């Protein structure tokens, strides 16, 4: 068997043997970085995490959110598609009948156990109404108790932004009789 030998060009001679020219070239590079970073922090690549966050792509799968219709009500029609497709079985939906016939069904409770969630995004793809999305960009979910990771419907839903088409407010979202109150979490994240 024939081996291929790659000849590395090693320059020899007095210049290499003296070391000092080589060290001077190295010092030129390190000193350039040193003085640039001492004078201005332009080249510094560090992201100081808790204060700064790395920008994430818009397609990055973060914490879920429940979107709203133009009239202020949740888009979700409680079809159980996401609950069925979920490989981690972390979504739990209970459907209820809405007084408005055009709305028909709505989620009485919509719980996601974010500790079980594998962030695969299948629920988003399965949803026929684009009611559930994972584009909040929330990277770090770190709480002190397991219960804090259990996100209920009222924690997941989008912020209420009234416009001219809005008919419903958050107070109109019918609460189920046995709905547990939104569980507190350590960061006191308000209902979205």
């Amino acid at each position, binding site marked *: 068997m024939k081996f291929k030998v790659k000849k590395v060009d090693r320059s020899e001679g007095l210049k290499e043997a003296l*070391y000092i020219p080589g*060290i001077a070239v190295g*010092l030129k590079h*390190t000193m350039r970085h*040193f003085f640039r970073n001492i004078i201005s922090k332009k080249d510094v690549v*560090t992201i100081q995490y808790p204060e700064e966050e790395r920008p994430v792509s818009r397609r990055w799968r973060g914490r879920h959110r429940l979107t709203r219709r133009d009239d202020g009500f949740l888009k979700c029609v409680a079809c159980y598609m996401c609950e069925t497709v979920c490989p981690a079985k972390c979504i739990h939906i209970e459907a209820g009948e809405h007084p408005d016939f055009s709305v028909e069904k709505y989620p009485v409770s919509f719980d996601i156990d974010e500790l079980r969630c594998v962030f695969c995004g299948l629920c988003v793809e399965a949803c026929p109404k684009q009611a559930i999305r994972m584009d909040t960009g929330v990277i770090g979910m770190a709480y002190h108790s397991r219960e804090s990771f259990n996100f209920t419907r009222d924690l997941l839903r989008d912020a209420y932004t009234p416009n001219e088409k809005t008919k419903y407010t958050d107070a109109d979202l019918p609460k189920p009789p046995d709905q547990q109150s939104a569980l507190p979490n350590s960061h006191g994240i308000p209902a979205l």
Partner: protein
Amino acid sequence: MQLVLEFLALSFVQDVLKILFILLLFAMPLGTFMTLMERKWSAAVQDRIGPNRANIGSYRGRGLLHIAADALKSIFKEDLIPRGADKFLYTIAPFFSFMSAVAVFAIIPIAGPIGDFKFQVTDVQPGLLFIFAITSLGVYGAVLAGASSNSKFALFGGTRASAQMISYEVFLGLSLMGLFMVYGSTQVSIIVEGQGEHWFGLIPKWGVFTQPLGFVVFFTALIAETKRAPFDAPEGESEIVAGYFVEYSGMRWSSFMLAEYIAIVGVAALITTLFFGGYQVPWLYHWESAPQWLVTLLQFGKFTSFTFILCWFQIQIRWTVPKFRFDQTMALGWKKLLPVALLNTVVTAIIIVALA
């Protein structure tokens, strides 16, 4: 009042005050500062920010509190002595390292003399021979730590340290032979005074101009003596973890580290003294009417700033040059530095005789 002045006039009291001043207000703070600056400056070289998280409340002080945090941590850390270690030798090893690092400052003048009063702890007549003796004692720190730790890594580190330090002492001494010939003495005060002269009233007669080769060899040998990169094979982070002090923890480990950083300051101070004119401010002789206090202040400022710059330069070298393999360290010493140092000695001698 009279009593206080008489007390201060005692040479013993003056010596103690000088020791306290040079150690507690110069060497130790600068050495401690270097522990942080090494991390900050290496971060700057590598496009990072460096330590800045230690805080009191919301006050961070640009990372300065890390010095206090490090000290507190190592004080409260458990002080382990490994099973099978020689307790006595294991305990005294850090003292040797620390002592040899600190003792260098005994003969370094930090400002010019005022009358009989010298800003120098002791101006011993052998001068630099004292430095050689002290740096040889520093070998014991590494060797005893390596031998007494009952660890193979430490033993390797100690062996390497002893071979390297004893070899490089040869070039340390030889590289200064030319300097001794040029200034005609081994006494530090005479060498520094000699560097106060100027050629044609323009170029200061510093050691770095009279002995450029000697400067390079001496600097290299001193970096090898402090066991820092590129000569850190005795510590050998990538092969033998931390070398001779791998088993140490807590304050004992800290004293090894602090000794290393005080040695950096010591090296910088020594090179300033021998090759950059010490406290001699160049071209100051033009200003004859300068008040004494201002001259002393300028001299101290010049000495301190040169020491600081040389400290920085050593750290910059560490983060620039890759580590030598151990045989390369030896080859560089015996095959390159030794002939260069000898050549420097011979050439200097010929020139001095020719000029005389």
